[in-house]
């Protein structure tokens, strides 16, 4: 293995491990699982990355790999969010959002419908463009638009409910 090989891997880790970890944290809502998912993604790349075709977009591949592994590990079905959400939802009070810390904000994703969680997490993490999100999730970009829109409504509702309770 060449020195270049090692440097390429190091560059990749340095540039993407934080974003991948945050994405994993939003999905799993657990530090250890997020670490495992992030490590698994890079180890899979180290092991099989050479098989990627020339010019392949590595960043969407990393996110797609992490998401696939998350889906593979997931055993219990996710609880459905309450129905009857309005077509638009007002944002919760800013003071409530300001009082949240990062993990608490990520915990809100656990209450979202499964199909909207990954697109919405990637929307807020802003590591990928819409076409890249679509590629990573193997979904048409129009579906990503719809899921982000739906997810934002759900998220605001969940945060507003928590704000009311507190």
């Amino acid at each position, binding site marked *: 293995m060449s020195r270049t090989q090692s440097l390429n*891997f190091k560059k990749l*880790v340095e540039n993407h491990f934080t974003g991948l970890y945050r994405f994993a944290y939003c999905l799993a809502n657990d530090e250890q699982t997020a670490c495992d998912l992030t490590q698994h993604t890079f180890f899979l790349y180290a092991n099989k990355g*050479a*098989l990627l075709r020339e010019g392949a977009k590595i960043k969407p591949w990393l996110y797609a790999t992490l998401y696939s592994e998350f889906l593979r590990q997931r055993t219990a079905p996710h609880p459905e969010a309450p129905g009857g959400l309005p077509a638009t939802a007002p944002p919760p009070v800013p003071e409530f959002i300001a009082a949240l810390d990062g993990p608490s904000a990520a915990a809100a994703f656990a209450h979202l419908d499964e199909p909207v969680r990954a697109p919405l997490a990637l929307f*807020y993490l802003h590591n990928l*463009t819409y076409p890249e999100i679509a590629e990573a999730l193997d979904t048409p*970009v129009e579906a990503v638009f719809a899921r982000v829109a739906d997810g934002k409504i759900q*998220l605001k509702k969940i945060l507003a409910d928590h704000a009311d309770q507190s």
Partner: protein
Amino acid sequence: MTPDEAKAILHLCPPGDEGGADVPGAGEARDLAAANPQLAAWWELEKNFDGQFSRKLASIAPPAELAATIMRGGATIFFASRLIAESTGETLEELPAIADEPEPKKSAVDTLAAALTPEKELAPPPSINWWWRAAIFSVVLVVILLLVMLLVLPTSLNSGAAAGAQLSDFTHYAAQLATLPVPPPSGHTLAELQKYLDASHAPNPPDPLGPSSNLNGATPISATAEIWNTHPITHYIVQSGPEVTHLFILNQAEFPNDEVEAKIFEDTVDGYRVQTWSGDGFIYMTLSRPATHP
């Protein structure tokens, strides 16, 4: 476009990219918002919420050791892949170049990654340079080994036996061998290794590789010394039942102390079970696979 349609478009614009470069109709929706104070006020609230929530997620910090752990695992995989390629004569595929990424700053993980990534070409045939180097090391080996055998080794072996319960007899013994400036002669190493591995000699020693590796009673096949990136590596091959294990030992003193922790990393590379761990001042790596594997 109605204000409601504009809202449906604008709230798809990601935080940090309110222009919505990838969102169809975003330009027209922005123009409408500029001309509609009510819509503009709504969008301002929306952007504030999105930005605030995005910043919350961005404040989630990975554990401090995660990057180093990943680098260590990657280095292990590269190292293992190279060893496998050399043993099978296969050519390794390079990872795709990351041309669009900035050059990384020199960091603490460089040394280990570099050390585990030899600079010589993949799977090269033994060259004249290699033989010259081997000859020079052989001469040095003879001189130093005589001194070591007279002065150091007996003491080391005794202390190794006494300290067997600390980590593992096998690990400790291997560590003693690896402390030699140059590797010991193969015959002596194999004999001592066999003596150690003999279950009757060392009943129930802790197995550093875990129960699945079952090194007790393993048969040493060869012991060689290799120099990778100027770092000496001791390489043993042992057979345990149907499995052949390559054991590599690196002196941890060659690396900054904060880079290698006493952790076990496991993965599978090209059919080999790869394990690394550290302890007693040494880094250990094993590659194991069934002996019948082609």
